[in-house]
């Protein structure tokens, strides 16, 4: 690939975002996921309170925010792993609130986890096969007759082997997943999610605990998902990575979406800076304010001396 020409998916995504207002909840031309008024409370704490947010189809969208901003909780709401107290969201126009996690995955919205969930006592290839949808042999009675599912199993295995090759795990095909390194487990989890042929891939901190050498390869795989026509939404802390691969960034703080925008400019948005560093952290002291503080300090000293 020539250094200056961008891949087709990137160009298309950038074009879609061109000239878009960098405001929270801004409408996208072709949203795959539309979220309205999702609220999740844990007792008195409102962990998530998202008014409106849209995810553009075919883009890589990053969801960032300081620790405790509610990113993972928000992920859990959307994927059915936790029930939202209020609100609704649609995926491809279909209402998804109250839909259980496995049905969400079947609709084409597949997630990975912050703490990798490689099934360590299954081999790598079995992990991969498990990811395929609508398997005939997953019914108990049909499972008893290999003739009914052997053909489909072979197709699944072929698909799995292709993916393993792409993710450079083919050498580990018959090893137990538990024997893989942390980074390889992340790769396996991502590859396994792709077995279900999802439309929207939701990655919860894909880079957490991955060594720098493997980060580049993981980044490449995430970018490649967009080129294959998938939409990616990911949670991440590493700003370099966010800047490198995302087309659009959504910033959450204290459960709310506080800013949106292209990766280059969103980080200089004052609301984002405030959320990460606290408001007024860099407000200069005015002359009067300085004077007043000085007087206060003097008064205090005098008081102490008198006593």
């Amino acid at each position: 690939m020539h250094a200056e020409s961008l891949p087709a998916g990137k160009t298309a995504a950038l074009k879609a975002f061109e000239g878009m207002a960098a405001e929270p909840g801004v409408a996208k031309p072709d949203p795959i996921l539309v979220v309205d008024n999702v609220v999740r409370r844990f007792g008195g704490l409102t962990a998530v309170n998202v008014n409106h947010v849209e995810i553009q189809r075919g883009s890589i969208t990053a969801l960032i925010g300081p620790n405790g901003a509610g990113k993972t909780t928000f992920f859990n709401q959307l994927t059915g792993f936790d029930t939202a107290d209020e609100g609704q969201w649609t995926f491809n126009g279909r209402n998804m609130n109250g839909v259980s996690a496995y049905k969400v995955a079947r609709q084409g919205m597949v997630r990975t986890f912050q703490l990798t969930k490689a099934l360590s006592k299954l081999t790598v290839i079995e992990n991969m096969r498990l990811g395929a949808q609508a398997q005939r042999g997953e019914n108990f009675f049909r499972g008893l007759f290999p003739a009914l599912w052997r053909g489909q199993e072979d197709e699944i295995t072929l698909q799995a082997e292709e993916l393993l090759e792409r993710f450079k795990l083919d050498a580990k095909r018959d090893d137990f997943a538990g024997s893989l390194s942390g980074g390889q487990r992340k790769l396996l989890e991502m590859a396994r999610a792709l077995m279900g042929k999802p439309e929207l891939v939701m990655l919860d901190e894909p880079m957490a605990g991955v060594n720098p050498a493997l980060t580049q390869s993981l980044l490449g795989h995430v970018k490649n998902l967009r080129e294959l026509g998938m939409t990616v939404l990911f949670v991440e802390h590493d700003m370099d990575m966010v800047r490198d691969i995302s087309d659009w960034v959504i910033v959450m703080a204290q459960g709310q979406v506080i800013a949106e925008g292209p990766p280059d400019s969103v980080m200089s948005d004052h609301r984002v800076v405030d959320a990460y560093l606290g408001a007024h952290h860099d407000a200069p002291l005015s002359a009067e304010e300085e004077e007043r503080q000085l007087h206060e300090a003097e008064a205090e000293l005098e008081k102490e001396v008198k006593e």
Partner: protein
Amino acid sequence: MDWTLIISRAVEAGIGSEAIIYALAAIGLNVQFGYTGLLNFGQAGFLAIGAYSIAVTVATFGLPFFLGVGIGLLLAAVLALLLGIPTLRLRADYLAIVTIAAAEIVRLVVRSVALSDTFGGTDGLQAFSGSFYDMNPYPPGEYGIPPIIGFDNRSMWVLTVGWVLVAIASFILFMAMKSPWGRVLKAIREDEDAVRSLGKNVFSYKMQALVIGGVIGSMAGFIFALSRSAVQPDLYSTDLTFYAYTVLILGGAARILGPIVGSMLFWLLLILIGTGLENAVNTGTITFITVNQVGAIRLMLVGLGLILLLIYRPQGIFGDKREISLDAR
């Protein structure tokens, strides 16, 4: 020391009705605990349901034997559903609590005074196995390999039916566990959230495992009742469940042959030690214990053996060491 007697008793126990009962009970647990990771501590309840279904249908109501078998299988499935619906969505420990209580409820109901007209109270029920033994194809006589193995024709009929049931159940599980269905169960044992995120209905699979394991448990109950031609409520207490777990872990969980070999070996060793000690005391070889203490000492030795097994071979006889030792983190 009468070694012929000791070995003969031990070998007979190793292939006898106890071995069948515990093998079937442990096969059921293997589906639930070994493959799916469900802690069913109430397997005794499923055995009781199987045993009492035959006994009550035939002895109390005078209905046909095979109707009792059908009712037993059906009730075991119903009990599994009842236990599973509220608990399978919760953490694994809740199922353990609920099943252990449910098994006790079954036992206390069948031994209650108020229902003794139906279930026979603490004495249980007899005289229900007639039509089963009427089907016996073995003519009266002694069968086996003298002087070690010898069974009468009634035992031979129970053993034949019992081992055929064990073989059928094991074959079905062998096929099922090789299939994608079995793969989903093993994945649920590891991490059910991961399986859910891949679009599998985890609740339904756990329920299927619970029902299949319970139904196999009720078959163990059939053999328990028929081999003794009697049912007594206190035979179905929690010890039975924990012996079945012992058998499963001895043989190796999540292995098709695990519960079978585990059960045979468990009974062979238990009787070998028991008869051996008894014989040694009677013949004066061992003088520091009495015959009455043999039963307790036998169980102590079994316990010691299990502790050693868990330390030095936690995966059991057939288990795969790698499946045990690999840990997520």
